[in-house]
């Protein structure tokens, strides 16, 4: 019944424009409701007790005194949550182990990092809840801790899990270690490859753990009833995933938990998992009252996110005419206190920009006494890119080739092999590099202590499960709903695609995000998947109602549906020979809905494949103050293949945002631990993300190589922009100072020390 109504070659009317977003006015007037903005009648305040130790055995938790404090209504510990079988479930790249997850929500046998939650109180005021936390007595046996990934891999390192046997090694090691997993991707013949090389460079690198740094701390309100039904108001990147995790962790039916999507104040991957939600539900269940739980900024930095720090070695060989013939790398990633770093992504993305016949990437997922890593914008890819793109820069210099020319020479295209098996299915890398090379500033000369650095980046982008509804109202206005959280303008892009498909003005479409009881499952707003996958669901739903409206017009005209086409928002007769009927507008059909079959609406659900990856190529001009080691970014130019920009300005904004997060990762951001394993910089004063005065104008080149699998050619745009900056800035610093930085962040003291040690 579904008819293809869009001619992809047809000029687009609204896709690619930049209208004001549907949720804009509430967000500029302070009326939008974010995670912490909901309060309910009879609500209690929840507070969480966190470990002051990096590593300790919990000998006992005594809540008796705290419970006698007037105003305290409930206390929960790990014992209040059901335990789970030890097993990794789901696809390997994103496997979940609920035995681990429940212990991260509330510690059981041990606390594994400073800030690890181990009990929570619900009380009538925040002050009483805080007072009660101070009355909970915990008897700790303090254990030796380990923070650094290389130290955690040493024999004799303190063990987080006394029974952890490394997965992926045959035969399995006899002794436990902190190495959760080893993995490897290999193609070709490394020895033969390196034998063809004229130049080979091998270097080692370290990168610091960095936090997603969303401005809104995690928070939620839960209301659990005596009938076992629960409602949860939560700011997350996916309320269906919050529902799935929380119900599983509490042992509830999925259907008994209804999650309302609060507006989200930034996520960048860090809000694809749960922290406070299961605790709020457990407290509400025990107290019989709604409970609000909010994190402080210190909690956010100590106990959520970040992405992995790493230690890596990268070896690449090229011929003198610039062909990359072999690459061999080892990536050791901090997983934090529980397994699950993005090291597999790092291995897969490491060489994915280039057609390299012989390569190997070996990854290690390593636990240490840090918060469990969470997804952060293209998780894993920026880290391996820092190593690979730095080594390529050294090689380009050695063979006397322009660094973008070297990359272009080896860039993948559709049909090129990947390290993990299937061939690349999409173009875009070459076009992106070429667009960057053509930027007028790329050849401009620079001054003293200034340098220009380039790097490329790859990210898979996501597809997956999404659902959308469209309803045609009696006056010809349209309401669409999806279950995808709007973290940066997706309501607008959904409305644009609906308006384009239906052939009506953008202003006629109301675009909303529905709760978990009102629409089908939508996976998280992450992996740069929403404009692609949820967009396909929206267009599919619109095409279903178009077919319905064609049928109603056909009935009105007493012709066959095949004689009716949909064009520019009207049902029209395809061939005047069957009758000469005046076209019926969407509004005219809507007005007659009652007599032509009732409400006009449709739901479409997809599990979208066919997504195209993100390709990025950036250059940065920097000036290094050789007296202080401070690096100033003079110019940032980011080219990215976006497939087709749906909302032009929000598309551009994604790229600018990713660039600046990358600049922060490159120059400033890091987790700093003291000798006791406590985080020294758990606040925005000392964990310094970029501010407006740090930055130059951000120049964006949007390259459009449409993805034929999306009705309007969209590719995910959200993530790949954070991949190139760290290496590109390191390369620029090297060109400015002759000093090669191999450790992130390239903060002033480190740059100064490197310059001084030359």
């Amino acid at each position, binding site marked *: 019944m579904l008819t293809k109504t869009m001619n992809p070659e047809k000029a687009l009317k609204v896709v690619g424009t930049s209208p004001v977003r549907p949720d804009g006015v509430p967000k500029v007037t302070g009326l939008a*409701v974010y995670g912490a903005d909901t309060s309910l009648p009879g609500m209690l305040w929840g507070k969480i007790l966190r470990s002051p130790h990096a590593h300790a055995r919990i000998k006992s938790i005594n809540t008796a005194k705290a419970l006698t404090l007037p105003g305290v209504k409930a206390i929960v510990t790990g014992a209040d949550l059901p335990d789970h079988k030890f097993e990794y479930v789901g696809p390997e790249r994103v496997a979940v182990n609920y035995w681990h997850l429940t212990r991260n929500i509330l510690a059981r046998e041990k606390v594994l990092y400073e800030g690890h939650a181990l009990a929570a109180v619900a009380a009538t005021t925040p002050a009483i809840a805080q007072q009660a936390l101070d009355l909970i007595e915990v008897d700790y046996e303090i254990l030796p801790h380990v923070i650094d990934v290389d130290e955690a891999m040493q024999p004799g390192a303190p063990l987080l899990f006394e029974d952890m046997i490394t997965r992926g090694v045959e035969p399995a090691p006899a002794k436990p270690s902190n190495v959760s997993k080893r993995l490897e991707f290999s193609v070709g013949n490394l020895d033969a490859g390196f034998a063809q090389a004229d130049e080979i460079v091998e270097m080692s690198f370290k990168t610091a753990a960095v936090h997603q740094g969303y*401005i809104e701390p995690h928070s939620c309100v839960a209301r659990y009833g005596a009938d076992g039904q629960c409602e949860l108001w939560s700011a997350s990147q996916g309320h269906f995933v919050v529902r799935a995790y929380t119900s599983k962790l509490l042992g509830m039916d999925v259907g008994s938990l209804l999650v309302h999507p609060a507006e989200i104040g930034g*996520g*960048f991957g860090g809000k694809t998992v749960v922290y406070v939600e299961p605790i709020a539900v457990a407290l509400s269940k025990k107290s019989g009252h709604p409970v609000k739980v909010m994190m402080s900024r210190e909690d956010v930095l100590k106990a959520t996110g970040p992405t992995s720090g790493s230690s890596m070695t990268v070896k690449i060989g090229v011929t003198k005419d610039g062909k990359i013939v072999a690459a061999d790398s080892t990536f050791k990633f901090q997983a934090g206190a529980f397994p699950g770093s993005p090291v597999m992504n790092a291995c897969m993305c490491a060489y994915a920009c280039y057609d390299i016949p012989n390569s190997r990437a070996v990854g290690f997922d390593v636990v240490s006494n840090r918060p469990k890593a969470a997804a952060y914008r293209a998780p894993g890819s920026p880290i391996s890119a820092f190593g690979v793109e730095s080594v390529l820069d050294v090689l380009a210099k050695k063979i006397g080739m322009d660094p973008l020319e070297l990359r272009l020479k080896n860039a993948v295209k559709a049909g090129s092999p990947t390290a993990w098996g299937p061939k690349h299915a999409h173009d875009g890398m070459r076009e992106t590099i070429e667009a960057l090379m053509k930027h007028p500033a790329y050849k401009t000369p620079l001054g003293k202590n200034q340098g220009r650095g380039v790097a490329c980046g790859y990210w898979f982008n996501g597809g997956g499960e999404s659902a959308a509804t469209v309803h045609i109202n009696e006056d010809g206005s349209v309401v669409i709903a999806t279950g995808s959280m709007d973290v940066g303008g997706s309501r607008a892009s959904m409305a644009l695609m609906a308006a384009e498909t239906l052939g009506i003005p953008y202003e006629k479409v109301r675009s909303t995000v529905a709760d978990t009881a009102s629409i089908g499952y939508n996976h998280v707003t992450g992996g740069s998947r929403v404009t692609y996958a949820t967009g396909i669901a929206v267009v599919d739903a619109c095409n279903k109602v178009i077919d319905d409206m064609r049928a109603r017009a056909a009935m009105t005209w007493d012709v066959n549906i095949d004689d009716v086409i949909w064009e520019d928002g009207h049902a029209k007769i395809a061939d005047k020979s069957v009758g000469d009927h005046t076209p019926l507008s969407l509004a005219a059909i809507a007005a007659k809905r009652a007599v032509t079959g009732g409400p006009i609406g449709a739901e479409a659900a997809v599990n979208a494949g066919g997504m195209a990856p993100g390709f990025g190529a950036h250059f940065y001009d920097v000036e290094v103050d050789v007296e202080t080691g401070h690096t100033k970014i003079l110019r940032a130019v980011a080219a990215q293949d976006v497939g087709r920009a749906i909302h032009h*300005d929000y598309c551009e904004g994604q790229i600018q*945002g990713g660039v600046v*997060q990358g600049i922060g990762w490159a120059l400033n951001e890091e987790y700093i631990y003291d000798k006791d394993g406590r985080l020294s910089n758990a606040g925005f004063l000392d964990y310094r993300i970029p501010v*407006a005065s740090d930055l130059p104008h951000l120049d964006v080149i949007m390259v459009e190589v449409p993805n034929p699998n999306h009705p309007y050619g969209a590719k995910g745009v959200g993530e790949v922009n954070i991949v190139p900056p760290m290496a590109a800035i390191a390369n620029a610093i090297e060109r400015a100072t002759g000093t090669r930085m191999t450790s992130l962040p390239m903060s002033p003291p480190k740059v100064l020390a490197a310059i001084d040690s030359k």
Partner: protein
Amino acid sequence: MSKHHISTVINGNPVEFLCEPQQPLLDILRDELNMTGTKEGCGTGDCGACSVTIDGRLVCSCLVLGVEVQGKKVETIEGMADGDTLHVLQRKFLEHAALQCGICTPGFLIAARALLERNPDPTEEQVRFWLAGNLCRCTGYQKIIEAVLAAAKEIRGA
């Protein structure tokens, strides 16, 4: 510990509230007065999401005690639009796509208005330095700066 009775003016309206001596103005606004447009990003004065003005002075409301606004005039994001007419800055933020998640937006708008009241014709660099106390993690600031400059231009009638 008894509470203090505070009389103040918020967005032109007379307001009274009871306040513990240690309660920050931010908590009073959000939890006692249900004015949740002012956001908490850090609670330590580092992010600017809770920006308000007190007698015209730009402050982080998380660093001001509720008792300090006795007899003062407080302006928050809820008072920025005139009925259903948005302030020029609010409109320019929308037109320039200067917000993605929007959690920092109220703070940026309050801070930007305070800038334009003092300097109606700021340079890009002046805007960047004035807004350096407001953190945004989504936009890279580019479109925020453009929106503020565009608003300044429109207000000047240039």
